[in-house]
């Protein structure tokens, strides 16, 4: 099992991808999709050095919901700022110390932050574990640090770094 399906999550994703692309549930396609889902990860296994471990599906859903709401809220804010207050912006870099270490967790965090209008992930500052974040209109740096640490980082640590959580 492990040998043929080293990354079951990815294989599942690929099968889903295949079926959605073809917009069908026909048996032939399911079979073909399954073959692809097994074969492709095996073929490219050497190019995927780090394994993924994901747990706590409930936390995943909670995080997703929160992020979606945050994205919509920020979207409204940013639009507002662009349209009406573009001359009074306080655009700043801020530094957020992170405890999250797992690359996949960090990647999801980056995805959420960058998908949220008004914030851009720049990088983890070299030589430290701090995140350099760029904020469109900064009022309260602590609020950002707090929000990211508790609402985003914490669930991600739970999902990707079970031993830490």
């Amino acid at each position, binding site marked *: 099992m492990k040998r043929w399906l080293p990354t079951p999550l990815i294989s599942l994703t690929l099968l889903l991808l295949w079926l959605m692309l073809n917009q069908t549930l026909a048996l032939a396609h399911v079979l073909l999709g399954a073959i692809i889902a097994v074969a492709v990860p095996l073929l490219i296994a050497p190019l995927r050095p780090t394994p993924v471990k994901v747990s706590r599906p409930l936390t995943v859903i909670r995080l997703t919901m929160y992020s979606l709401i945050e994205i919509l809220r920020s979207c409204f804010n940013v*639009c507002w700022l*662009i349209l009406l207050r573009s001359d009074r*912006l306080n655009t700043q870099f801020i530094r957020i110390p992170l405890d999250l270490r797992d690359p996949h967790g960090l990647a999801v965090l980056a*995805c959420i932050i960058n998908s949220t209008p008004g914030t851009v992930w720049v990088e983890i500052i070299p030589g430290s574990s701090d995140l350099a974040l760029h904020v469109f209109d900064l009022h309260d740096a602590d609020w950002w640090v707090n929000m990211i640490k508790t609402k985003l980082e914490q669930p991600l640590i739970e999902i990707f770094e079970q031993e830490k959580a």
Partner: protein
Amino acid sequence: MSNFLTLPMAEISPWLAIPMALLLVIGGIITFTGALGLLRLPNFYQRIHGPAVFITVGTGCFLIASMLYFSGTLERPVVHELLITAFVLLTAPVVSMMIMRAAVYRDLRKRQPDGQPGDAYQFPDEQ
């Protein structure tokens, strides 16, 4: 204007049509606003936030609208638009990350004499 903007649309169930219309309008406004930000904001570090708006939310709105519409016309659930959403979510963050970092270090190198390794983010603002 011309036939392009006035080509009549198919009749679909109002349960789909009304949210779809709403989503189209909202998506349009967001897209317009985001692009306007790219155009009007005074410096690069502010401009980069403009497109982010429409890439995430604008795309989302239009994709859901499209799902609703084709589910209505083809009379079966059409979900493959989700793929686009997924791909955008996978790729857009990478782009903004990379462009942002490129910009930061380009600016740093330009002001090299006073820059020290690691002080990239100590300055208050980039004008």
